[in-house]
């Protein structure tokens, strides 16, 4: 339920909107993107989470960056830690 890998869109097909070619470290596969299509159109260079040949989710660069920021701050000054706690409770 669990093996899902981030892949970058390298090709889209205007006449086949349910498909995209994604690439993971130079390995390419055509995947079905029906589950991640919404008002915002997909674009080449978007990152998707891939599971058994289907895109499950769009990967949010903002959330990823935010997470890295939090992780980088772990182990630093206590003020930073308090700030993190405040952020986490506000997130949902």
């Amino acid at each position, binding site marked *: *339920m*669990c*093996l*899902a*890998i*981030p892949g*970058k869109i390298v090709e889209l097909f205007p006449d086949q909107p349910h498909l995209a070619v994604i690439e*993971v*470290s130079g390995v390419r596969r055509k995947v*079905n993107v*029906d*589950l*991640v*299509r*919404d008002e915002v159109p997909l674009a080449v260079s978007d*990152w998707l*989470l891939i*599971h*058994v*040949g*289907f895109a*499950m*989710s769009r*990967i*949010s*660069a903002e*959330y*990823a960056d*935010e*997470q*890295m920021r*939090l*992780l*980088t701050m*772990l*182990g630093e000054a206590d003020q930073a830690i308090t700030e993190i*706690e405040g952020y*986490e409770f506000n*997130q*949902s």
Partner: protein
Amino acid sequence: MKYVDEFRDAKLIRQAAAEIRKLATPDKHFRLMEVCGGHTHAIYRFALADLLPENIELVHGPGCPVCVLPMGRVDDGLSLASDPKVILTVFGDMMRVPGRTGSPLEHKARGADIRMVYSPLDALKLARENPDREVVFFAIGFETTAPSTALTLRQARALGLRNFSVFCNHVTIIPAIRAILDSPGMRIDAFIGPGHVSTVIGCRPYEFITTRYGKPLVTSGFEPLDVLQSIVMILRQLDSGIAIVENQYARVVPWEGNIPALRVLAEVFELRPYFEWRGLGFISQSALRLRDEYAEWDAEKRFHVPGVRVTDPKAAQCGEVLKGVLKPHQCKLFGRECTPEKPVGALMVSSEGACAAFHNYAVRTGVTTAASTGS
């Protein structure tokens, strides 16, 4: 690999581990359950337990869809392959799972047409390319994988494909978690919540765990930093005496879930009144079957499956390991009668099964089997 490598950064991992050691006050003992088999695999593959202090105990949960599949259902699937017209397609995970008369791989060696696929779409493609054969897809998995099966069925129906069907063994995660929580003698302090199941169902379905049972749950990613960060978040909740659902895996998990996925699930599947889970017994409303509109693509309706219940060998303690009551090496058969080469139960076959993961990855110095302790 982007979105992978940065979450395996050694320096940040050591930092997170240090933070955990700070938060895990020595006078307390923490029992954290990771529900999902993928997390069990990650914990062993990345040796994360090495980084945790002694007073944090990781308990493996039942979220391994191969592990909870009763042997009778494996036999049912294999019986389909005995029809010479049938091409049975299975995920790699299923190939070595033992049925009563052998695993799919062993049946294949004896001549059954059983082929491994990476995606249900590969099975659909096989059906289109082989109009004179019957292609059956052995569907397993929790809510992560079910939408893919559903979309494939939708396509089969749209194409009017007559030689494709699905043998459906999809199960749902919430009933499994509830069964753990209601288990007598269960003492879990908090949950490392499923990551990829949550991309489909979102985080709301877990709220009952915090409100009714008072246990924190953090939906977690699968890289080392994800799991460690989730543990930090759990420890902070436990320290503050609160219990809420938090989303550590926000870069991928939407709080409300994936609407198109939930929609296609509702269109194609309905809940079975009950389903047998290996080790957990019969659980109501815990598994999916195809709706009547899709009856034509339901392998159980198209073919006759024996539907025989096969009880586990008495000595095998799969159920207790699944519920986290026993650690893998505490099962009497572990490492002796039951090994990855000659597995008795599915937990030793599936690479995310607690027993296989432990057997294959855990450094076994100092860990004694039941045999050597004489118990």
